[in-house]
Every structure is written in structure tokens, then in C-alpha cells.
């Protein structure tokens, strides 16, 4: 899995988006198989995707499959949060770390859903992880970590209570 672990601003959180199954997890199919526990370690600040060959191929599947353009609904945004949460559960956060924030938005020309998890580390610093989710042709929403060099250190306007959010910027990197 790829992880963008920016040390961002107001230091509130860290983020990850990943696959959770939960109710409404898929459009037609059980999505639990799309949650791959080996993806990501859940501990903020580590970019394991860059070194783990088993994870490096995730983004090969970065484009939605299927004949029809996917139109993501607001419920899908929440579903992407659920999926992200499931992935995190497969690999607990580092000791003392707290997951404080979820952000979910339509990304990549609305072809994907970007998800960001904000994590406060035990030392009170903040970290973030980013993933994206999309429906495959089989109706299953799968979430992958992001492997985009430009995302490293990407400011995350969504994060931080005192920062006025700007939902435009975080979408562009996708």
C-alpha cells in the first residue's frame, strides 16, 4: 500500500483510505475480499508501500473498471470511510496513536474517491495517510493507497480545526 504521510500543518491528523466492508460496501457483491490486510501497517508516518514489492502493484489497478461511468453518491463517500476503517483495523495503529479525522471526497475527475485519515501520534505530532477507492466492474468498492510522488508532504487543507478547508486542492493531486 502506498502511504502519503505528510507532516502537515496544524498537526491534527494522519490519514489513510482503505477498504472496509460494512453495510453497503459494494454494489452487488460482498466486498470483504477486497480488503487486503497486508496493505498498509496502519501506523502513521511510515511509507511502507515504497519498499514492499507486494504492495507496489496496487496502483496498477487505479482506473475504475466497467463499461459505465461510475457516479459516486454521498453514501459512497461514507462507504469509503468505512472501508478505510476496516483496513486500519487489520493493522492497528501505533501505540498511543489516535485516529481523529476522516475526509472523503470525489477525486480524479470524480472517477475515484479520495480518503484521508488524520492520526495523532503519541508524541502529539500529526500524520496523514491517503488512499483512493473506486468501484470495480463487479460492483465492489476497493481502496488502494496512493503512490503519487507529489503527494508526499502534500498539505492537507481538510485537516486541522483551525484551518479553513479548501476541498479543491486535495483533489488536484489525484
Amino acid at each position, binding site marked *: 500500500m502506498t502511504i502519503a504521510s505528510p507532516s502537515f500543518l496544524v498537526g491534527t491528523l494522519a490519514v489513510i483510505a482503505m477498504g472496509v466492508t460494512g453495510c453497503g460496501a459494494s454494489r452487488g457483491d460482498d466486498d470483504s475480499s477486497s480488503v487486503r490486510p497486508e496493505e498498509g501497517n496502519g501506523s502513521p508516518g511510515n511509507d511502507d508501500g515504497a519498499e514492499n514489492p507486494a504492495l507496489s502493484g496496487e496502483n496498477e489497478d487505479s482506473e475504475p473498471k466497467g463499461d459505465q461511468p461510475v457516479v459516486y453518491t*454521498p*453514501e459512497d463517500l*461514507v462507504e469509503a470511510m468505512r472501508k478505510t476503517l476496516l483496513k486500519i483495523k487489520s493493522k492497528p495503529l501505533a501505540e498511543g496513536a489516535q*485516529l481523529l*479525522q*476522516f475526509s472523503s471526497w470525489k477525486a480524479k475527475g470524480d472517477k475515484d474517491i479520495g480518503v484521508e485519515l488524520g492520526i495523532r501520534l503519541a508524541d502529539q505530532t500529526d500524520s496523514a495517510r491517503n488512499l483512493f477507492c473506486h468501484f470495480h466492474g463487479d460492483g465492489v468498492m476497493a481502496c488502494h493507497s496512493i503512490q503519487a510522488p507529489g503527494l508526499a508532504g502534500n498539505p492537507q487543507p481538510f485537516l486541522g*480545526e483551525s484551518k479553513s478547508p479548501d476541498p479543491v486542492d486535495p483533489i488536484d493531486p489525484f
Partner: protein
Amino acid sequence: MLKQLSFRAAAGALSGLLAVAGLFGSGAALADGEILTPENLVELSAIGLEEFRSELGEEAYSQIYAITTLRNEDGDGATLKYYYGNREDAVYATFFCHEHDPGELDCHEVPQ
């Protein structure tokens, strides 16, 4: 102008997931020292989404393109934001949810 909204995420409505997290039992309060879990935040997002839909209508609802949920430091409240409309306009509805009565989170819109 955004219509002023408020809603209450009662223990009953949240119990499905909050009970799982052990926060809200059957009508129970958020126990001392317990905080909102990530699961709670996600489900609170879902509840707020439905409230947004019922209050602002289908058109605004269909234009939602981003959702953020941030837990407060104490862990007994959260801020929900629903972005909708044209992205360039960055219009969003904000709700602040906080436990006032045992087992219930009162959510009120925060004017943009």
C-alpha cells in the same frame, strides 16, 4: 443562505454502531473516560448525511462531493462538514456534535 440545521444523534440511532464500540449501550450514556471511536465518527457522518438530505433537499444532497469528520480533543464531540455545489465556491454545511444528555449527541449547524 444555508438553512440552520440541528439534529440529535440519539442513542437509539447510533446504537447500531456505537454499541459495538461499547460507547452507547441501550440508552446508556457515553461513560466517563470513553471517547468517540473511529467507528462512531464514520457512523456519525452517515447520520449527518441523512439529516443533510432531509433538510437541504435532494438537489443539494446530490451535489455533495466531500465529507470530513473531526473528533475533538476530549473525544466527546465531533465536527462534521459536508461540501456541496461548485467546488470553486467551497460551500459547506458544518455541524458540531457534542454529548449533552447521556447517550445523545446534539448536533448543531455552525454557520459558514
